[in-house]
């Protein structure tokens, strides 16, 4: 079952997503990257209906890229989030809507602030200090209520993230084995090993 988490810290956003591709009851792949790098300072973790997810993520990726080519600078995280939200909201009332849930983490280089957005397939968009999608949310949100600190260093943030992943491994029957973790801050995007 798909699990994704994200949280903000002092000057950064952390995103983590499982790496399993599931078909019926079979794990067909365990090294899938479900966090797209939309622009130099924008990450998007996606989950939901297989097929829809990759199709929609690539559609978003190409459009964000096109904006950057046309205007030389990329969309700032709040604007990118609003544009993606409208795409999902319009899709919802179309003949076949995408069912994709997203976590959007970015660093705004013009105001020097990290942003994290929780978004679902209905087009619900809200800015949050931490977020989760999938069964992981039932475990992680209460942990994060207790341990999240918006002023935490990267090391402290990763330690809290590890708590969440450990809790999922311990309690969730269908827990994924591996995660990919990415971070975005003033220097851009990098992958971190847990």
């Amino acid at each position, binding site marked *: 079952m798909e699990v994704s988490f994200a949280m903000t810290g002092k000057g950064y956003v952390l995103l983590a997503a499982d790496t399993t591709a599931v078909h019926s009851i079979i794990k067909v792949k365990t090294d899938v990257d479900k966090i797209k790098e939309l622009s130099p300072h924008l990450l998007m973790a996606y989950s939901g209906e297989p097929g829809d997810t990759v199709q929609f993520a690539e559609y978003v990726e190409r459009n964000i890229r096109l904006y950057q080519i046309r205007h030389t600078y990329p969309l700032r995280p709040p604007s990118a989030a609003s544009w993606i939200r*409208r795409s999902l909201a319009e899709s919802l009332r179309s003949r076949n809507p995408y069912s994709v849930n997203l976590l959007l983490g970015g660093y705004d280089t013009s105001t020097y602030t990290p942003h994290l957005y929780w978004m679902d397939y209905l087009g619900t968009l809200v800015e*949050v200090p931490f977020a989760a999608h999938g069964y992981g949310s039932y475990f992680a949100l209460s942990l994060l209520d207790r341990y999240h600190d918006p002023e935490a260093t990267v090391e402290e943030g990763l330690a809290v993230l590890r708590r969440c992943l450990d809790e999922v491994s311990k309690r969730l029957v269908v827990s994924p084995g591996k995660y990919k973790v990415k971070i975005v801050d003033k220097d851009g995007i990098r992958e971190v090993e847990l």
Partner: protein
Amino acid sequence: MSIMQYNGGSVIAMVGKDCVAIASDLRLGVQSLSISSNFEKIFPVTDRLYIGLPGLASDVTTLREQFRYRVNMYTIKEEREIEPQAFAQLVSSTLYEKRFGPYFIEPVIAGMQKTPSGSYAPFIAATDLIGCLNFAKDFVVAGTASEKLFGVAEGLWEPDLEAEDLFETISQTLLNAVDRDAFSGWGAIVHVITKDKIVILSSSAFISPGLGLAS
């Protein structure tokens, strides 16, 4: 479970003496799981006019953006700000346009309407999700706690409340109603509008500290 209850949230508006107030909770949830305690549903339209949009959170944002666009275009073309009465009509027709595939929102409008003599009169209104307008003289409610809001407001509201008293009345009505509603709460925000000033207070300013909302 209706789609109207999916994200939770409630809004109330009340008339006072030469003032109006509009208030809402701040919860956003997915059924019984709370996602955010900072989801605003009340938006300024002009300096003297606010709209509250309880219902499906996706449509809250969609309609907020659509109303902002239409009001800005109105302001540009007319070279004046929209009046509450006209805005209520705009809200109604926007919703009725989608009569057979509606937005899942029940808007609440509160503002001060300019009178021909140049003074301002309190104005509140609410519509259902397809835009049937209800102009009330006392108060209007909407959202998942609407039944409770009706009950408490019926007991607490009285005519010609001054701004300070109206603030107290709407705050207590909202807080006590959403405390009994599992889908609303998690903070609140109140706007009091008089002819020349708007006071906005969020939950931290008038709710005693603690886990829940003290009443």
